[in-house]
């Protein structure tokens, strides 16, 4: 008599096991399959095209009725197995039927996760797992209306695209900041989001679902931020969980999944498990490729082969949304230029990144052009040494064998009608003609004349090479200095593009401006972070990990790793109460050094990091706030006593100093900013060596700018004169804003003035009243977000983990 093989679950893994088995040893077993779904075996991954209408169910059937007959397989469709009686070797169905087995295969797949929020059971809330789910969605979509898909992973996006294709207005709500973050890096995630949005689908990232609303049916999805998105249909696609209940209840060992060995055997020697329900060497899978490998091994074991066993799988991902090409595989840990190769083409929305370690491909993320995905994946699996083709690797397989070209020769070899600047459609001939005909010698001239590289700037280096090739020896390299090795553009060009193209995130900037690394470097990240805060005070969220430690913890790191804390003393004024509070803090926290700074305030040096929040809390309670002594921002406004006390004083210099400090405090600037106000030209506050200095005179206020007293000493230049205190405040804020908007990161104000020209600043501030007022307005608007006391926020618990050690381990008994 033939042995009896029973299979529980009629999904993709089960189907493949049988295919393999019948090929290896046809007729060896008498097979019965129990499938909870009331249908034959079909290709689950093609449910997405069924939803979008690109395929019918018939087209995705794997095993039709004829197949079951031909292979003498008994299919008990619509019958769920509810118990395994291992002692008597039989299974029991929901309807009470029993079926004996000699060998049993558990292939129960996985269950969609339903997030446990109120309303999750309302009619109109569905998951995306089987044909019934698709039918439910199609029914809902036939009436048009709105759908909200919770989950921006592979499944969620395929559901969203399908529903949108069926005419629904779709929003995707995703918990993480970028889509498909487990399969894509943030750069590809950014491009994907754009592509999804151009399909009319709204994408809401960093959004947590609070509840599903509705009385009898779902009517909306409420988010943690207070918004409610209207919805007639809600699709939950937040992940899957291996379906282990049956195995577990039958006493088979389970962890996250049903535990199997390399031959897919469970803890019971007669029972195998395969597919998404298993856990092999600690890993659970959610894609079909591993299941196929498992099925082969399992069938081999059933057929009595002595195979090598299953050793785990490396997986790759694709998204089945028509018109979106993406591919990812392996490990795409963030790296630097040493272990990754990045190629971006902003005009064609292409991003390719190959991650290397020890000259082997360990990961790849491709967006927009995935042709070489399989090639990289193959090299990854085989561990091919790519050192010999490293320079051309990123151009793909078809490019191999060609020698890497000398860039000048390559540009010289281009035909005249080759397009150099994709944005403005400028071809080589036009540029060469402009150079020779117009006597151009610099990139800026070429840009002004032909518009080549005037938009995204990505072709700047090509245009430069062309200049070089055309002028030959006459070419003198300009003093253009790219921002850093990650990009060809200068600081100024990057800033201009951020505004012009409305780039509002780091991945957006890096993609659209063709960064050569995947995530920048310690030099460009803080700069970009500043440019984005400055350009989009409301839209951009400060990236703390892109800031230097001082700005992250709002204190200054000292050489021994302790910190110094400097409270604000507005205009250098203080009170006995403030001084007492400072003294108390110094005593309580045993602060070793208390020093008066050059900026007219008090520095507490040697504070331990974990004491910082408590130090701030105590200072706060006495009304003292952070002095931003660590910031690329306003430091101090030094004052003299002025007309309040001094017999020479012409104006209230202390009062103006306090007002200026209150107006400017908290704003981020390219580099630190120091001010001073002196009550008369005797200039006791040393205003003429500050970034901005005010000298009071009988008729009003002289505004000086661009002083310095550090490594470099420089007296200020007189910018102009104003009559009233209000004007003084407005003008100073406008200068600050102009500096904020134009200077390169880390460039002090005096450097920027020397670069841009004093006359230009004067015209913009003193003469162009409309412009000055607009600058002032923009400053005030950005201050609404910026002017917060970081100490108060942290004393109240923000970023608490930044200050406490993760663990403190002390010996249990002293030796």
């Amino acid at each position, binding site marked *: 008599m033939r042995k009896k093989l029973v299979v529980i679950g009629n999904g993709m893994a089960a189907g493949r096991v049988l295919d393999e088995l019948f090929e290896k040893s046809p007729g060896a077993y008498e097979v019965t399959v129990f499938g909870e779904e009331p249908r034959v075996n079909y290709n689950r991954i093609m449910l997405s095209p069924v939803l979008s209408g690109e395929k019918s169910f018939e087209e995705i059937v794997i095993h039709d009725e004829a197949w079951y007959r031909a292979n003498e397989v008994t299919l008990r469709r619509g019958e769920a197995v509810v118990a395994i009686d291992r002692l008597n070797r039989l299974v029991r169905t929901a309807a009470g039927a029993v079926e004996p087995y000699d060998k049993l295969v558990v292939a129960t797949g996985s269950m969609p996760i339903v997030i446990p929020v109120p309303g999750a059971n309302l009619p109109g809330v569905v998951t995306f797992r089987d044909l019934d789910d698709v039918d439910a969605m199609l029914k809902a979509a036939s009436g048009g209306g709105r759908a909200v898909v919770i989950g921006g992973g592979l499944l969620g996006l395929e559901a969203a695209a399908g529903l949108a294709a069926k005419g629904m207005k779709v929003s995707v709500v995703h918990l993480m900041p970028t889509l498909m973050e487990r399969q894509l890096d943030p750069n590809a995630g950014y491009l994907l989001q754009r592509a999804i949005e151009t399909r009319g689908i709204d994408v809401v990232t960093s959004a947590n679902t609070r509840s599903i609303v509705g009385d009898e049916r779902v009517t909306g999805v409420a988010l943690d931020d207070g918004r409610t998105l209207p919805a007639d249909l809600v699709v939950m696609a937040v992940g899957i969980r291996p379906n282990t209940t049956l195995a577990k209840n039958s006493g088979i060992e389970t962890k996250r999944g049903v535990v199997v060995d390399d031959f897919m055997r469970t803890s019971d020697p007669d029972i195998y498990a395969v597919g998404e329900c298993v856990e092999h060497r600690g890993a659970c899978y959610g894609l079909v490729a591993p299941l196929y490998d498992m099925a082969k091994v399992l069938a081999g074991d059933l057929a009595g082969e002595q195979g090598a066993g299953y050793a785990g799988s490396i997986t790759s991902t694709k998204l089945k949304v028509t018109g979106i090409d993406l591919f990812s595989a392996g490990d795409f840990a963030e790296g630097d230029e040493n272990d990754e190769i990045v190629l971006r083409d902003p005009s064609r929305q292409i991003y390719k990144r190959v991650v290397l370690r020890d000259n082997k491909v360990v990961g790849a993320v491709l967006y927009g052009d995935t042709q070489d995905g399989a090639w990289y994946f193959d090299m990854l699996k085989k561990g091919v040494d790519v050192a010999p083709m490293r320079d051309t690797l990123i151009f793909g397989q078809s490019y191999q064998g060609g020698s890497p070209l000398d860039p000048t020769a390559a540009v010289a070899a281009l035909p005249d009608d080759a397009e150099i600047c994709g944005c403005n459609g400028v071809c080589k001939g036009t540029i060469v003609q402009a150079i020779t005909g117009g006597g151009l010698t610099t990139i800026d001239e070429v840009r002004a004349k032909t518009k080549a590289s005037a938009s995204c700037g990505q072709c700047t280096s090509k245009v430069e090479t062309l200049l070089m090739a055309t002028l030959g020896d006459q070419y003198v390299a300009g003093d253009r200095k790219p921002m850093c090795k990650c990009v060809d553009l200068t600081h100024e060009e990057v800033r201009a593009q951020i505004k012009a193209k409305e780039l509002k995130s780091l991945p957006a900037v890096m993609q659209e401006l063709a960064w050569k690394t995947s995530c920048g470097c310690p030099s460009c990240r803080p700069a970009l972070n500043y440019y984005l805060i400055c350009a989009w005070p409301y839209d951009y969220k400060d990236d703390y990990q892109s800031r230097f430690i001082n700005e992250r913890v709002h204190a200054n790191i000292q050489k021994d*790793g302790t910190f110094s804390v400097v409270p604000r003393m507005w205009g250098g004024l203080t009170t006995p109460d403030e001084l007492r509070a400072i003294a108390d803090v110094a005593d309580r926290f045993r602060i070793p050094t208390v020093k008066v700074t050059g900026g007219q305030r008090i520095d507490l040096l040697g504070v331990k990091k974990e004491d910082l929040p408590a130090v701030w809390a105590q200072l706060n309670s006495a009304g003292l706030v952070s002095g931003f002594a660590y910031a690329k921002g306003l430091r101090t406004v030094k004052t003299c006593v002025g007309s309040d006390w001094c017999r020479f004083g012409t104006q209230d210099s202390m009062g103006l100093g306090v007002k200026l400090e209150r107006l400017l405090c908290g704003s981020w600037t390219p580099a630190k900013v120091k001010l001073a106000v002196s009550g008369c030209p005797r200039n006791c506050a040393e205003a003429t060596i500050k970034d901005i200095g005010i000298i009071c005179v009988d008729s009003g206020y002289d505004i000086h700018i661009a002083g310095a007293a550090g490594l470099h000493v420089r007296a200020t230049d007189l910018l102009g004169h104003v009559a009233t205190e209000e004007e003084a405040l407005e003008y100073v804020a406008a200068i600050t804003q102009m500096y904020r908007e134009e200077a390169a990161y880390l460039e002090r104000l005096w450097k920027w003035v020397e670069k841009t020209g004093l006359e230009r600043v004067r015209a913009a501030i003193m003469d162009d009243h409309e412009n000055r007022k607009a600058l002032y307005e923009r400053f005030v608007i950005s201050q609404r977000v910026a002017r917060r006391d970081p100490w108060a926020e942290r004393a109240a618990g923000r970023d608490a983990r930044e200050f406490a050690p993760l663990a403190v381990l002390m010996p249990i008994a002293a030796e």
Partner: protein
Amino acid sequence: MRNESRFWFDLGSMESIPKRGARTVRTPHREIAVFRTASDEFFALENRCPHKGGPLSEGIVHGRKVACPLHNWIIDLEDGQATGADKGCARSFPVKLENGRIYLDMGMAAPA
């Protein structure tokens, strides 16, 4: 006596360290910085820069490297070696991630 076997100490959930960030673990003989990269890899180094002892946990993490906050030496998180022209090494310790929790090998990290 020194315990030669591994003793994995549970430092808590991976979420307790920010991406591209670090937290410290204080042991009787040294402070250890545990780093998390942008792609959720974890590394542990003695929290002392080989240059002049700067607290590496306060540096900017980029890729598998950290920039010391004091004078910007770039230290490789995998082996603690200074990169580029700089020479020196911060001691590194085994860490592992299991089921979302971080474990540090105390058998290595705790002894003097």
